[in-house]
């Protein structure tokens, strides 16, 4: 057994190559396009109220304090997930973990870059496509541009962010990504029909 394990490890290190789940997959229906987004840096952040000012300064984006909101600056987005929990997504290639490392105020920052994958759902029928499996009210009144929330899609948990009036970013755990992508593709077809 030990021999086999060692062999596997050696093979893995000699071909260390990242293979993002579902890379490059996309599907289109009338009025909506579902597309897997490129990898991004992600961080799960937990912190008490007293640490927010220092963390916001270090991250370069003000951590939102209101439920269901997000803040965005220079390719970096911070989503309010709970009263002391945020998801920070950086699409500009800078690691938010490194920025938090120097902060002495109490906080917990955990890198989750490769735990999640992101899927873009865009087009006039995007709302209907997501609502095929997500029970939240996604009208512009209830879920305006910039609104973000952890919620569910079908059987799995997702983090939903509205990036434009007709565009959403769906974040899910990579082991669920096949299910989520297929679900959204079917939802898109239904929404178009």
């Amino acid at each position, binding site marked *: 057994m030990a021999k086999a394990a060692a062999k596997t490890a050696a093979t893995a290190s000699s071909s260390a190559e990242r293979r993002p789940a579902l890379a490059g997959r996309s599907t289109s229906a009338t009025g909506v396009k579902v597309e897997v987004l490129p990898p991004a840096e992600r961080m799960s952040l937990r912190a008490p109220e007293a640490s927010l000012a220092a963390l916001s300064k270090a991250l370069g984006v003000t951590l939102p304090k209101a*439920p269901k909101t997000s803040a965005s600056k220079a390719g970096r987005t911070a989503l309010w997930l*709970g009263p002391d*929990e945020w998801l920070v997504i950086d699409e500009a290639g800078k690691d938010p973990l490194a920025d938090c490392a120097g902060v002495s105020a109490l906080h917990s920052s955990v890198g989750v870059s490769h735990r999640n994958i992101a899927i873009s759902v865009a087009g006039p029928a995007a709302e209907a496509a997501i609502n095929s499996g997500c*029970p*939240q009210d996604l009208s512009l009144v209830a879920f305006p541009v910039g609104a973000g929330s952890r*919620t569910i899609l079908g059987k799995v948990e997702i983090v939903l962010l509205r990036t434009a009036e007709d565009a959403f970013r769906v974040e899910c755990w990579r082991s669920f990504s096949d299910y989520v992508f297929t679900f959204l593709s079917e939802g898109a077809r239904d929404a178009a029909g």
Partner: protein
Amino acid sequence: MLLIRCPYCEEERPELEFRNAGEAHIARSANMAGESDDDFEKFFFIRSNPKGIIYERWRHMHGCARFFNAVRDTVTDKFVMTYKAGEPKPSKLPKNSNEVVAK
């Protein structure tokens, strides 16, 4: 679908995001080892199971992930009100849920 107001998200959310977590306001003894068997049984197993108003813990599992308390009618399944975890049991209940939303 049932809509449940999460006191942390400050809005009504679909029931699919929530999970029930049993009866609320069950105080754990500070001296558990000194509890008699009868008292421990009451704490651990015996629940009120009323017909009508019940005080429950709920968790906004697929939302803010916070535990909170809810007052629910077991006959109509209607949520009377919800309040944050750690807050005392409400002494007076609102007449209808609209008052809670307005608050």
